[in-house]
């Protein structure tokens, strides 16, 4: 089968992402990678929980002094919305609507960038207002490592999706790039999965004690 063959909405397969052997391998390999990522984040969460509020003296801020729930709520809503927009993108991919798929991924990227901007604002706010830097306490190191690793994943996800959009802009949809888009959307959802635990375990539980 020629993966770059031109299709029409009529003969486009139901599950284009797993039509070719390469697509099947990407799909399975990517889920294995996500399982590995789950373990990576579990170790960071575990470290954070063990070191939460471990500060050298009372002049250092604790979790409940630091976090600002309205900001975290806004970040959560933006990231959650970017998750449904990438579902729309994959919906249009399965219907062979290349332009609509690209458009929904562009919206996803914009929302992701909005999330990232708020996270950068949050970190600089902590550094300037509370002198809460990476090296100020065991708590701050654990916090920045966990939330920063998530932020790095968001950054990587944005670059990845932008690269796909630009690279395939004139190429259209085929069985060669459909698995690439599909796997990128899985990555984006996984970023949201991690964020659900971050806003619950770090921010909300941080506020209650």
């Amino acid at each position, binding site marked *: 089968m020629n993966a770059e063959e031109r299709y029409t909405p009529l003969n486009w397969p139901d599950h284009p992402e797993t039509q070719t052997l390469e697509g099947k391998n990407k799909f399975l390999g990517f889920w294995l990678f996500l399982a590995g990522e789950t373990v990576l984040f579990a170790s960071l969460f*575990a470290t954070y929980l063990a070191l939460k509020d471990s500060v050298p003296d009372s002049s250092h801020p604790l979790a409940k002094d630091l976090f600002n729930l309205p900001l975290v709520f806004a970040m959560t809503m933006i990231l959650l919305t970017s*998750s449904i927009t990438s579902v729309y993108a994959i919906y249009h991919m399965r219907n062979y609507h290349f332009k609509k798929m690209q458009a929904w991924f562009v919206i996803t990227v914009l929302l992701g960038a909005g999330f990232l901007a708020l996270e950068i604002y949050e970190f600089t706010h902590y550094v300037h207002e509370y002198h809460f830097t990476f090296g100020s306490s*065991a708590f701050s190191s654990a916090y920045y490592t966990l939330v920063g690793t998530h932020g790095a994943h968001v950054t990587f996800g944005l670059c990845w999706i932008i690269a796909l959009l630009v690279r395939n802009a004139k190429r259209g949809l085929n069985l060669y790039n459909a698995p690439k888009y599909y796997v990128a959307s899985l990555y984006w959802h996984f970023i949201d999965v991690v964020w659900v635990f971050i806003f619950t375990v770090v921010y*909300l539980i941080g506020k209650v004690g």
Partner: protein
Amino acid sequence: MNMENEQVKNPNLRAHHDYRRKKSAKEMQVQVVTFALMIFLTIVAFIAVGIGDFSVKFIIPFILLLAVIQVGFQLYYFMHASQKGHELPMFFMYSAVIIAFVTVLAFVTIIWW
């Protein structure tokens, strides 16, 4: 596939295409409902913490439960794990969840600093 064959098969293709369009439109409706539920669960979690009247022993398990439900929606609907062909991926993910759970449990119970 040459042109002639495609012409012969077209009525079938058309019917299959229409059926598939309807099916994915239905699936998309379910996704939107899932999204609304996820927003709702998030708002409930933030309000429960924002009110600040509940005991810590209640609120922590409660918001963790909301997070687990929300992640289930994300995996099974947004990431399509409820569709067939996801047996091995889910085996990977549940193995990871077991390791994740034990790691976190160890660090919050038997760590000494």
